[in-house]
Structure formats: structure tokens, C-alpha cells
């Protein structure tokens, strides 16, 4: 057992942290969000083609640095610190993760494009009525000659307006909630028959409702692995947003502490009041437990499927709970200014609140954990 980072990992963290410190201050982020595209494509170019950071979790044969989940954790934590709205989770962690696991010609072609910054992937898995059940799908992929025809409606697809590719879950057979028949496809986002309704999300991203109407896709678009592969990819995504939560929670603690040192009431900085000190100590404890659970989940991703799922569910449930406590305490401690758009703290709180429910909330994951580990 060894819980230390390698020098390369430390260097990666430093490189990304320094880049974000120079380029991603709160005011700049605000401008990106307000721009027509909702982001600055130059940032993505810098992260990928210029700094080579997108190569971190990929194998050397694809032009990567040979890293994996720990590198994803490091990157997501740093991105969380500035509440970055880059499509890293969708492109590198989810799209890249699915391709790494499935392998084959599609991986050989697409991973180098991710590394180079040319491919941006959005994950179209959620449906209007499916909640958190990944197999609760009405979107269909009907076999048609050597390919498939897609029909359906995907909900709240983060990064879809920016995407070159869509990673889509769809049914090739079986009934609505059946595990068998669920498959994963990587398709061209510009395929005829795809329409989008784009919108901003409350946490600063851009997303879409995506409609598929008789979208013809080639047979090679299928990433073999079915629901097992999808669950693995979503588990990886979940620990990645847990790590993002680490960066967010620690920053919320730091901002809150700083604010209470400046803000004066009753003739003194409010940070001198014990009731607020204890609340901030609780926030610190929650933030550190988030870091611990992000690490735990990350280190258990390669266990056999049931153990992996149990570990990830435990991590996500705790992170969801702890983010809620940290975020709500942060706003309460800031007082009125905390519920305005003016300070960064509210924007951290918004992203934290979306992480809670993304890929399953605390209730969902406690239930999955119980089903896997506690005999009835």
C-alpha cells in the first residue's frame, strides 16, 4: 500500500494549477459564460494541444502519458478549484474512458483526437423519465443493414453544443428497464437527423436536449461492452466529480474563512464568533472527507465490478451529503451577499449542488450500496 503521488503526478497538478491560476479568475470565467458560445475555445486548445494535459490518462500507444484514474482525480480536483466549465469530464474522463475500455479501431482513431484537442465528446445517457437508472432507456438503436438507426430523446446533455461526438446509450433490444439490449455508441454530433435544443445550465455549462430522428449510424460506432461498460464509465465519472467536489469544497472553506475575517459586525470580524468558527470547522471536516472519499473511490475503480460499484456508491453518497453541508454552510455564513451573483461563493455552491445529483444522488447510491453489500 502506498498513498504517495509520483513526481510526474505532482508536476501535472502544478502545471494545471498554474495555468488555471493565470487564466481562470472569476471575472474571466464570468465573461466566458456570457459569451455566445459559453466558453473560450482557446482554453481547451491550451489544455490539450499546447500543454498536453489531455494526454495524461491515456496509454502511450495512443500518444498518452500512460496515466489513469489518479491523473483524472488530480485534474478534476484542480478544475474544481476554479469551477472550470471545460468539457473535461465528458471528453477525457467519460468519452476517453469508454474508448479505453472498449478498445478497437474507434479508440485508435478518437483518443489521439481527444489528446490533440480536436474531439469534444458529450455523454447522452439521461432520459426525461429514467432518473438514475442507466438501463431505463426508451432511445432505440435498431439494426439496419451493417449499421443502426437511432430514435429517441436525451435529456440535459452537458457540453452537447460544443461537441464533435456524442456518446449515446440506446437500446438494441429488450424492454424499457431491461439490462440486456443496452448499448453504447460513439457518433458524429453532426449526423443528419440530430436536432438540439441548447441552453445554459445553472452551474455555468452549456447543455442540450438532444433528439434523434432516424439517425443512421455505422456499425463501427458501437463500443462493445453493453450496460457493464456503461456502468464502469459512469463509476469513473462519479469519482471524477467527487474529486471535482474536493476542489470545490476546499475552495468554499477558504473563501468562507477569508470572508469572515474581513466582514465586521458588532464591532469585530464575524470569524471571531465561536458559533461561526465551529460551523467552519465542520465545513473543513466535510471537505476533507470529500477528499478522502474521492481518493477511496479512485483507488477502487479496478476492483471486480460489484466491489467497485459498492465503493463508488459509498464515495458518491458521502460526497453528495458533504457537499450539501459545506455549500449551505458557506452561503449561510456569507449572509445576504452569498445569495447574489456577485461573489464567487454562490457559483461554487451551484456547481456543488449539481454534482450532488449528477450520476445519482445520495439516496440512489446508498440504495445501490445496500443492495450490493447488505444481505436482506
Amino acid at each position, binding site marked *: *500500500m*502506498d*498513498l*504517495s*503521488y*509520483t513526481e510526474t*503526478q505532482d508536476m501535472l497538478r502544478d502545471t494545471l494549477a498554474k495555468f488555471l491560476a493565470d487564466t481562470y479568475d472569476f471575472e474571466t470565467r464570468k465573461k466566458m459564460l456570457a459569451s455566445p458560445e459559453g466558453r473560450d475555445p482557446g482554453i481547451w486548445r491550451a489544455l490539450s494541444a499546447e500543454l498536453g494535459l489531455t494526454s495524461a490518462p491515456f496509454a502511450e500507444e495512443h500518444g498518452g502519458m500512460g496515466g489513469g484514474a*489518479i491523473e483524472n482525480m488530480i485534474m478534476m480536483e484542480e478544475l474544481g478549484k476554479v469551477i472550470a466549465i471545460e468539457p473535461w469530464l465528458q471528453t477525457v474522463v467519460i468519452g476517453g474512458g469508454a474508448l479505453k475500455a472498449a478498445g478497437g479501431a474507434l479508440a485508435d482513431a478518437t483518443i489521439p483526437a481527444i489528446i490533440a484537442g480536436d474531439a469534444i465528446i458529450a455523454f447522452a445517457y439521461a432520459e426525461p423519465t429514467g432518473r438514475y437508472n442507466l438501463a431505463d432507456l426508451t432511445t432505440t438503436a435498431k439494426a439496419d443493414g451493417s449499421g443502426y438507426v437511432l430514435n429517441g430523446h436525451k435529456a440535459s446533455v452537458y457540453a452537447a453544443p460544443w461537441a464533435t461526438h456524442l456518446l449515446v446509450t440506446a437500446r438494441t433490444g429488450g424492454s424499457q428497464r431491461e439490462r440486456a439490449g443496452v448499448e453504447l455508441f460513439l457518433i458524429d454530433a453532426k449526423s443528419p437527423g440530430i436536432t438540439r435544443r441548447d441552453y445554459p445550465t445553472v452551474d455555468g455549462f452549456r447543455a442540450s436536449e438532444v433528439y434523434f430522428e432516424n439517425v443512421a449510424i455505422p456499425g463501427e460506432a458501437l463500443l462493445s461492452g453493453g450496460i457493464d461498460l456503461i456502468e464502469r464509465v459512469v463509476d469513473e465519472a462519479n469519482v471524477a466529480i467527487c474529486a471535482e467536489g474536493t476542489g470545490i469544497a476546499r475552495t468554499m*472553506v477558504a473563501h468562507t*474563512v477569508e470572508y*469572515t*475575517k474581513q466582514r465586521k459586525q458588532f464591532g469585530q470580524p464575524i*470569524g*471571531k464568533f*465561536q458559533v461561526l*468558527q*465551529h460551523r*467552519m*470547522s*465542520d465545513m*473543513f*471536516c466535510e471537505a*476533507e*472527507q470529500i*477528499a*478522502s*472519499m474521492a*481518493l*477511496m473511490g479512485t*483507488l*477502487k475503480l479496478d476492483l471486480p465490478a460489484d466491489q467497485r460499484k459498492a465503493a463508488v456508491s*459509498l*464515495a458518491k*453518497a*458521502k460526497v453528495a451529503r*458533504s457537499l450539501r453541508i459545506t455549500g449551505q454552510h458557506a452561503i449561510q455564513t456569507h449572509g445576504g451577499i452569498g445569495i447574489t451573483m456577485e461573489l464567487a461563493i454562490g457559483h461554487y455552491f451551484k456547481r456543488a449542488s449539481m454534482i450532488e445529483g449528477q450520476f445519482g444522488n445520495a439516496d440512489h447510491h*446508498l440504495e445501490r*450500496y*445496500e443492495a450490493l*453489500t*447488505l*444481505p*436482506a
Partner: protein
Amino acid sequence: MDLEFSPEEIAFRDEVRTFIAENYPAQLRGKQDEGDELTKEDFLSWHRVLHKKGWVAPAWPVEYGGTGWSVTQRFIFSEETARADCIRLMPFGLTMVGPVIYTFGTPEQKAKFLPRILSGEDWWCQGYSEPGAGSDLANLRTRAVRDGDHYVINGQKTWTTMAQHADWGFFLCRTDPDAKAQEGISFILVDMKTPGIEVRPIITLGGEHEVNEVFLEDVRVPVENRVFEENKGWTCAKFLLAHERVGIAGVASSKRGVERIKEIAQTELDGEKSLLANPFFRRKVAELEMDLTALEFTELRVLAGEAAGKGPGPESSLLKIKGSEIQQRLTELTLEMAGHYGAPYFRGFGEGDNEHGIGPAWANRAAPVYFNTRKTTIYGGSNEIQRGIIAKMVLGL
């Protein structure tokens, strides 16, 4: 980074496992799980076995009798002892005064006391709290007045755990009454057989005699028994408290506690199904495992930091807060499981006090242990004090 044990670490784990199986005293088996009260001889019998093997003080430096184990080995050792339901050793010598002596003591003090702590020959108690100095420990009033080459100590200590068995005690005494609260205190080792010491029992809610009041009247102690400089005892006290907070998390034994609850809840009936199938009870078990896992990995991160040369800092307050809360939740669930059989009280009948037989054995001590365990968020610096430490030392408030 890797959670897997290396082949060497697995071999070490097997060695520990085998050693426990072959050497754990037979008369102690089951006592930890049942929450039985332990006698002095109970504590010492396991202590002596570990001392003979050289494993009694894993965290000590090798030169003073430590094992030289890596952080992972220490983790494995505590996992294995908890897993095998071993009783916990008394911490007052091994994890409290021992480290203070090898860190701050004179060569003579090290030579005199450390071997006897390791062997279990000396039973230690902790003279910190006083009636007027609980959370505000620095307000202590017990006075040590210099008289030639002796200190004469007068005062009263309280909550002194297991002082009824103690050969020695480490006492915080005020040596300069005019200095600011924390600056006039000295750390003094006192032979408990010295004339003028009286130990009176305090009986806690479960009926146990675990803690005591200690009265000191004109107790004469040689000056050479003072550790570190005069009036600098607070340095030792703080050092000790930071060390105490790490061990206090009790991760390994809480893990064993959860397993035990799951085993019992699976066989206890609640209607036609097991208690573990009850969705409300089940959720509480899952939440407990969740929080315990968060604590475990927080401790692993602290230990990894320690291995990289960072001592246990104020972050260890987090371990104390969360660890103590989890210990309490375990006892709550056990009492909930006991149902009707939480009520019988097996004490005070004279002959056959410890005789079980009413209700399931695991339920006999459920309520007393629940009552007793309210102490964990109070002792070692109450959890409110820990929050204050985090606010001040970590957050800089």
C-alpha cells in the same frame, strides 16, 4: 499510488494473524465483542504477550523499543488485532507518557521509565483534568511548590481513568502561579504510592468503576521527575494531546464493530424478515459504513503525510471528532438491536454479578456500553474543543 498490499505486506499480515491466533490469551476471547469490563490482569495478560514478541509499541522509534514498522505495517497490525477481537491496550503509558518521555525526557528518565512501560510493569494514569479545569485545562490549580530537590504537590485531579490500578501518574501542575495560564505549568511524574495520594472511585452510568478522583496532599516528588523544563509542561501536554487524537479515531475497532452489528442484525428477526432487511435500520448501517470509510481514508491520508515527514498536526482533530461520533453510533445501533433486552442490568446482585443468561449474550452490555460511550465526544478534548482547535490552528481564525 496503490491500495494493494505488496507480497511482503501480505506475508506480514499473515504473520500477525497467525501470531494472534496462537498467542491471544484464551480467557480474553469474546470479551471485547461483548463489551465486558476488563480487569487489570486482563489488560496485562495481552500486553505481556505483545511485549515478549516486541510488538507492544509499534509507533515508538526503534531505539526505544519500537518495531520500525512502516505506516502500512502499523495499519495492518491494528486491522488484524481489531479483526481478531483483541482487547485494546491501555494507552496511558504506551501512547501518552511514553512518547512524551522519549521526546522530552532526560537520558535517566528514558532509561528508568521506558522499559517498564513496554513490559507493563508500571501501570500509568493521567493527571490532567480538575474540577475547575476540564475543557479549560490550562486553568488547572494543582500546585507544585519547590522545596529543595523536591516538589510538594497539593490539589485535586478528576476523571483519572484506571488510577485505582496505577503505579505511576503523569500530572500537570502549576509551578508558577503568576505566569499566564499556559506558561506556569510543569509535567511531573508521580509515584502513586507516595504518601498523601488518595484515589476515590467515580461510578459511571453503566455502573463501571473506570474513572477516579485523585487527591494530593503534600505529596513530595523529586525534582528529577519533572519532564522538560519547569513551566514548559504545556508543550508536553499539547504534544501528547495531538498524539492521543490520532489513536482515538479507533478506525479498526469500529470496523470490527460494524461487522458485528451486521452479523447480529442478519439473524435478529424483525417481523418475518431480518432486522438488517428493515429499510430504516439498513440505511443506518449503510450510513455508518459510509462515514467510517471516509474516516478510514482520512486517517490513511494523515498517516501517509506522517510517513512523508509531517507529524500529526491539528488535522488530527478531525479524526477525533469523526471517530468518536462513529463509536457512539455503533453503540446506539447495538442498543436498538437489543430491543427489550436492553433493559436487564447485570450488576449489583452480589454473587453472580457477571452471570449472563437473560436475553442474548451480545445484548447484556448494550445499554451500559451505550451510556459509557457518551464519553468519547467529551474526553481527549471535547469535540467542541477540537472544533476550536481546527478554527484556530487550521483555518487561522
